């Protein structure tokens, strides 16, 4: 496990995540009103990138078939996805947002 840099805190826009690739894993990092949250960027239904989806009220909607996930907990909220997405711890170190994987 290691901490990975994402971007300076001030570079984040609400509702637009930043994506970091670590080996095989793609991680999407969101800024919400209470902090930064990192989840796996890949929908658990078929294959789509959640970072390309619509994001609102702490939820992200898959751009293909509209399964929704809670960004804070990774929980899937409706079909057609049925498996939660992975979440990763985040922190801000010296003004830079990081996640642990």
């Amino acid at each position: 496990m290691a901490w990975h840099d994402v971007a300076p805190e001030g570079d984040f826009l609400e509702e637009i995540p930043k994506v970091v690739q670590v080996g095989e894993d793609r991680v999407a990092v969101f800024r919400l009103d209470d902090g930064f949250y990192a989840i796996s960027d890949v929908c658990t239904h078929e294959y789509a990138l959640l970072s390309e989806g619509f994001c609102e009220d702490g939820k992200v909607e898959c751009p293909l078939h509209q399964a929704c996930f809670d960004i804070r907990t990774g929980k899937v909220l409706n079909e057609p996805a049925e498996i939660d997405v992975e979440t990763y711890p985040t922190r801000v170190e010296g003004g830079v947002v990081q996640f642990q994987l």
Partner: protein
Amino acid sequence: MRTVIVGAGQAGRRTAELLRGLDAGHDILLLGEEAEPPYDRPPLSKEILLGEEHPRGLMQRDAEAYDAQRIALRLGERVAGIDLGAARVETNAGERIAYDSLVVATGARARNLPIPGADDRRVLTLRSMADARALRARLRPGLRLAVAGAGLIGLEVAAAAIQLGCAVTVLEMGERAMARCVPEAISTRIEAWHRAAGVVLEFGCPLTAIRPESDALHLVTSRGVIAADLLLVAIGAIPNSELAREAGIAVEDGILADASGRTSHPQVFAAGEVARIWQEAAGRHIRFETWQVAQHQPVAVANALCGAQRPYAELPWHWTDQYGRNVQILGAHGAGLDWLEREDGERLASLGVDAEGRVQGAVLIDNGREATPLRRIIAAGRPIERDRLLDPSVALRQLC
């Protein structure tokens, strides 16, 4: 309370599972004619043809998952009749099963070509997993595949087949691709993807007869005779509503149902693609041939079965995937709309605007992020100035 659901497809599964979620005590029997446990059909003309054996997109659960939910699933059984007076269905094997409520979720079947020669073994349709496997087994490099119909399924099959090395010709009676559901400019783009991949598209080209010869099928068209090894017929679907009609339930190209799925008989409901559903906003009954209706209209049905009201009133939405590109179609758009395009690199939002400046429908290419904002814009029904709709610095979410 015992509910019998006829048809173990997507809408049948959804109705059973949603009902179980609402009422732990309900006795639920799901009866289906196919040998497979329920599955979603979209992957059949996409991932399955391209060789992915078990895409998660099928949403297929095994028999144990139904046991765990206490849904009695009986497969390989066709319901042959409904006796409304006695409140029973009869299976092909002659068994009579009583119900308190009945849900007809029998879906639709592929329409056959009503021309001579269409009964040859080399003429196929695509509706079920068995059909998809049979088609896939025959799509070999070099095979000459003809597809009748340039609708969603025909074009998805053409895209998969050309990627598998087949020589593909699409024969369409009309003038353009997917004419029923997208504006001309989108048809043009989609046609360009196919032509770039090597698919031959023939428009204004009805197929009038098939001459099965030992070496090939000779397809007689208005442009002459085309030789093919295999013909896939993809010219639309017919609702499986005969069962309901014969029982005396009101049917009119689909089972007539209110927004809760109730049919003309108080104990009988219709779910999914077989239903022609009352849409208050449109002021008429509409039958949808989409994943969306099979997924979400059962919410209305399951609630109604429990005495609650959750009328179905969604903006129609469906999609197609071809050559790795995703096309989403929102709203039911007739003629008379002006189409404005917002383009951002590879992403496109094409907005159908009426004379008053209201967005009535949209087509998105690789741009699913905009589906929800657009759904809201369309639902709001407010005129929006053209400049704002086209201004790339104004996000669609700001307009809803």
